[in-house]
């Protein structure tokens, strides 16, 4: 057994300001096995992998590869030593060809100067044949679908003769057929003695493909078991650490009359087609679906930051044009975006600036002057109301944890006095404790008669918080279900309707 | 590691400041020697990279050294405001005499501002004109603490024109490449706004034509009938060889021997531009041994130009006397520092190379001379 251990991580610890991301986590991967790594978002899976690849410097612990202690400084060094990762978000040079990407940083050369294109082509073809990948090595990355780009990434890992390959949510953007192909490849790699770490949320997949399962929760190791010894419910119990009912605050809101009506929204530059649904005052409506099913696009179209070809939005019987964000805000809409860092926070600005930016006219005096005092009061009020943990209002927002950043942005929106809140993955990348607070906040808003639309990839979250769930598939509404009576299976079936 | 690096950066920054402190210490010591004569002489140059002025500076530094004066040279990078800041700073720093090579040549207002800022401190202007159309004389006559040492701006143009005229009359048929009986020329102007450039551009052609007409020959014809300015100017105002060469290269595309409209003569405002023109011609096989030589004329008589003339690649230039200029400036400064009024200092200079302006006793000209080889 022991000589079979390929990779061993022992007591890995990592702290970020305000968060203990990893607390003495251990993991053992054996030769020729698939080891699933499970846990909720924020459980520390990605952080653990980043420590392995040297993207983060671990604060404590040891990593051994085939019995030798290693300490990679970057993913290039890891690759050279036979540890590869197929990322969830692919880091590829999109404007370059397939083979350029595979041999990047180690181009075969003629006499050390000119790149040997021919050898590069032949070597690429050899790897592709071995893996059964049908892609032209000369093709430009950006012209290929995500699934094929992922195959290229796998081929790259194989071409390094990797001993350990980490797959981070590899199936999230693949079709069923592509998933089958991926599993064939994974099985083949396993038979060759490669150790595979497989990170995924999808229980069924995990049960099918993996030999061992390690569950993490809140940055801690919880359990490692043989896959056949664990039932799906056991896994969920281990991941959540308590009964599901305790994960969400009690539902107290009562939906009133129909307030927001969205009719026939069709996107100009995206795949949205004829999206129609409505939402009541004091109702929390979930938008479920697979990645790229059009959930985010729906919210952004309603908010006017994506161009609509057709479609009507009515709020309380009054039509809203919502041509751009400013107009939507004026009409009482607020949008919490999915990519907090890219489109939410102003990293170099402080909490106060981040809080007041959407509601500056509240502070205007004499038509031009902005009152410092009232800005500070508003900011403080929402720091208190949301229990945001920050040393001061002058703290730069990027030094807060994800959950606290999210609270600041929600505060920003509440200051605009919105009637409709569009929340896109409101709890992404937030630790479990903070999630509960966000749920409570959403419920409180509904209690005050606000209408909430909420996109989430976490099914239990939608079931626990929403009143009604609109399921999207392939840019269309596939169906509507009552959150109280539906099941995950029903939602999944609808989500696959137009794929 | 990062911190170590940051510390190194700080150190570099500190060093660069200290380095100047160190250099200064030497300068300061030398200045103290100069102070034995009680003089803090500051020389303001319009730009550090001007070829002719570099030779003046070389000569001037030597002259000053022999007189026991250590000048402080300041360069304005062709920016008048920078120069004024330097002047004000030097005044605040206790300068005893200002020697100014004014950036905006021909602007009497600027000169007046400098004089006003200087107050009682004497100002010796040199090289670049401080006014046009007599406004410089007005300024000079109105202030007893100043003087101007330069060249008679139009004189170089006149001299160049005469030289060209004489040369063309003597070699008319050889120059007339296409044998159409008239000679087409190109004119390279150094700076759109510089008075000397303006005079040279004007008189270089006018005076040549006067000689030609007197000899019964047709006047020179500008090669490009569509260009009513009849010159091509360095748009950066830098009198540069590069600009002249680029113009010449472009001209060749439509004006060449094959199409029978080749440029047959090139007049340049200075030798730098003449060099650029010669380089362009040589690339096309002209002005080299065995090839036809298109006459090229410049002004300044720089070392490079003299060498080109010796090779036969360039025809003539007008000698700006750098030594003479340096001698005039240094001797005037010495006399003024020793207590003489500028007007007396100039009068005291006894040298065949110098002449006073007829209308102004504080305006000294250093003579030009034609140069066509030793």
């Amino acid at each position, binding site marked *: 057994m022991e000589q079979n251990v390929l990779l061993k991580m022992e007591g890995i610890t990592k702290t970020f300001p305000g968060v203990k991301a990893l607390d003495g986590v251990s993991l053992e991967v054996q030769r020729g096995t698939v080891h699933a790594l499970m846990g909720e978002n924020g459980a520390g899976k990605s952080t653990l992998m980043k420590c392995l690849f040297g993207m983060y410097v671990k604060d404590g612990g040891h990593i051994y590869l085939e019995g030798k202690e290693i300490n990679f400084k970057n993913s290039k060094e890891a690759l050279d030593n036979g540890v590869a990762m197929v990322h969830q978000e692919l880091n590829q040079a999109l404007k370059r060809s397939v083979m350029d990407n595979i041999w990047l940083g180690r181009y075969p050369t003629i006499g050390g100067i000119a790149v040997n294109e021919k050898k590069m082509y032949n070597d690429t073809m050899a790897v592709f044949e071995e893996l059964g990948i049908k892609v032209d090595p000369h093709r430009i990355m950006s012209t290929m679908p995500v699934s094929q780009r992922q195959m290229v990434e796998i081929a790259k890992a194989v071409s390094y003769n990797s001993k350990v390959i980490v797959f981070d949510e590899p199936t999230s953007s693949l079709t069923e057929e592509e998933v089958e192909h991926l599993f064939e490849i994974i099985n083949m790699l396993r038979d060759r003695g490669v150790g595979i770490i497989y990170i995924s949320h999808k229980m069924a997949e995990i049960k099918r493909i993996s030999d061992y399962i390690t569950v993490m929760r809140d940055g801690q190791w919880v359990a490692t078991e043989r896959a056949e010894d664990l039932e799906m419910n056991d896994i969920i119990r281990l991941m959540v650490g308590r009964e599901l009912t305790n994960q969400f605050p009690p539902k107290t809101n009562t939906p009133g009359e129909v307030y927001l009506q969205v009719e026939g929204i069709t996107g100009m530059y995206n795949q949205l087609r004829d999206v129609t649904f409505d939402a009541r005052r004091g109702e929390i409506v979930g938008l479920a679906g697979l990645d790229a099913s059009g959930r985010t696009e729906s919210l952004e179209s309603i908010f006017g930051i994506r161009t609509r070809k057709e479609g009507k939005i009515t709020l309380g019987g009054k039509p809203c044009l919502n041509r751009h964000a400013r107009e939507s805000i004026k009409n009482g809409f607020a949008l919490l975006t999915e990519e907090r860092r890219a489109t939410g926070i102003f990293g170099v600005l402080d909490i106060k600036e981040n809080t007041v930016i959407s509601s500056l006219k509240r502070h205007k005096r004499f038509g031009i002057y902005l009152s410092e005092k009232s800005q500070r009061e508003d900011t403080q009020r929402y720091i208190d109301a949301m229990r945001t943990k920050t040393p001061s209002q002058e703290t730069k927002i990027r030094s807060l944890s994800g959950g606290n950043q999210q609270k600041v942005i929600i505060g920003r929106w509440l200051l605009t006095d919105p009637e409709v809140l569009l929340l896109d993955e409101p709890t992404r990348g937030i630790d479990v404790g903070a999630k509960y607070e966000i749920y409570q906040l959403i419920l409180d808003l509904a209690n005050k008669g606000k209408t909430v639309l909420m996109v989430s990839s976490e099914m239990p979250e939608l079931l626990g918080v929403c009143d009604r769930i609109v399921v999207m598939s392939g840019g269309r509404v596939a169906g509507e279900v009552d959150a109280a009576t539906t099941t995950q299976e029903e939602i999944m079936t609808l989500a696959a309707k137009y794929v | 590691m990062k911190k170590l690096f940051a510390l190194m950066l700080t150190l570099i920054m500190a060093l660069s400041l200290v380095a100047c402190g160190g250099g200064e210490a030497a300068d300061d010591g030398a200045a103290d020697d100069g102070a034995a004569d009680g003089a803090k002489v500051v020389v303001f140059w319009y730009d550090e990279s001007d070829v002719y002025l570099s030779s003046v500076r070389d000569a001037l530094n030597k002259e000053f050294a022999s007189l026991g004066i250590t000048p402080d040279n300041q360069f304005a990078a062709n920016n008048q405001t920078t120069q004024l800041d330097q002047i004000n700073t030097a005044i605040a720093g206790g300068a005893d005499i200002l020697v100014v090579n004014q950036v905006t040549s021909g*602007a009497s207002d600027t000169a007046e501002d400098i004089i006003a800022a200087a107050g009682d401190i004497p100002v010796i202007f040199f090289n670049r004109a401080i006014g046009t159309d007599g406004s410089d004389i007005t300024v000079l006559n109105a202030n007893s603490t100043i003087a101007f040492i330069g060249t008679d701006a139009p004189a170089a143009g006149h001299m160049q024109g005469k030289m060209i005229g004489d040369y063309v009359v003597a070699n008319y048929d050889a120059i007339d490449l296409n044998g159409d009986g008239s000679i087409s020329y190109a004119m390279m102007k150094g700076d759109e706004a510089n008075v000397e450039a*303006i005079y040279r551009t004007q008189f270089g052609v006018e005076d040549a034509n006067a000689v030609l007409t007197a000899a019964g020959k047709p006047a020179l014809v500008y090669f490009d009938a569509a260009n009513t300015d009849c010159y091509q100017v360095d*748009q950066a105002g830098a009198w540069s060889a590069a600009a002249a060469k680029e113009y010449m290269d472009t001209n060749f595309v439509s004006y060449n021997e094959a199409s029978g409209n080749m440029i047959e003569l090139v007049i340049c405002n200075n030798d730098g531009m003449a060099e650029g023109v010669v380089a362009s011609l040589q690339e096309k096989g002209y002005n080299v041994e065995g090839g036809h030589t298109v006459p090229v004329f410049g002004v300044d008589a720089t070392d490079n130009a003299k060498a080109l003339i010796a090779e036969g690649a360039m025809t003539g230039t007008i000698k700006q006397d750098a030594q003479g200029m340096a001698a005039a400036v240094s001797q005037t400064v010495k006399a003024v520092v020793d207590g003489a009024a500028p007007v007396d200092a100039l009068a005291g200079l006894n040298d065949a190379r110098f002449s006073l302006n007829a209308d102004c006793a504080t305006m000294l000209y250093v003579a030009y001379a034609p140069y066509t080889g030793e």
Partner: protein
Amino acid sequence: MTNPVANLQRTAAEYKKMDQKDQKRFWSDMILNNALYILMAIFVIYTAIKEPSFRTLGSLANLLTQVAAYLPLALGIAGCIVLTGTDLSAGRVVGLTAAVAGVFMQKSDFANKMFTSIPEVSGGWIAATLLIVVLIGAAIGLVNGFFVAKFSLHPFIVTLSTQLITYGIILWFFALNGNNGQPISGLSREYKDFVGGAMFRLGGVAVPRYVLYAALLTALMWFIWNKTTFGKNMFAVGSNAEAAKVSGVNVFMTTMLVHTLAGAMYGYAGFIEGVRAGSVAASTGLNAECDAIAACVIGGVSFVGGTGKISGIILGVFVLRIIFVALTMLGVDSSSLYIIKGAIILCACALDMRKYLVKK
């Protein structure tokens, strides 16, 4: 503004809690973060000892005057840098507006007056001219802003283009009416007094009126940056344009306005420049943007975007002018002046960048 005393107390309390290693780090961080200012202080003291004339009142007046002359341009360009952009057209805009102001302000009895139909200079005419040149500057800024905002072009490209176009217009302008590229001279006494007239004397050196104007402009810019919606929006756009858009900021208008405001500042700078140089030539304003950009980045207006303070810009201009004045007085030749300036900009920015690097 937070209470500085309370801030200091908090810092002191935090300091006491630190262990020895952290305390050491605290001091080294403090020294590194303020390295530039510490060095400048040492440099100033050194110069003052070495060169007695540097510590006179007259010298201070000279320094102040220079700072006031360079400040407006830096204040204008800083907005562009906050938006992670830049403005290469600044110097040429100064050149053009200086030329226009110069022509409008020529003495009526001046022999080479370019346009004899321009009226005699009076108070009202001076005000009108100031307005006109500020509008010209603003118009060029508007063009910059429009292309940057509308087509998402990098300001580097847009302003490089307008720089060339503006220079073309300058050359054309100088050739008008038989002027033939001659410098514009004969500026009227009233104009010179309005801009450069002595307010009072410090150590025998006159302090011109534009020092007062620069102070007023600085106050105005501070207000705009810190107390208006436009200012807040500018920082938001500079920090994260996408997030700003989602938050309801009009990114297009903000970008346009920042460039327009910058252009207006250049227009004012041009109005001053003619009087400072005594005359206006086609090369007036050449490369003026370099000093302005340098002052901004030295003062912590970072190309990272979304950061910068008016006080930083003032400090940046002071640093550059102190280096200039001190080295000129010490008689250091200008080749080393360039090297020192370059080294300081490079090091100041590298040290500044430390603050923005994500520490892992």
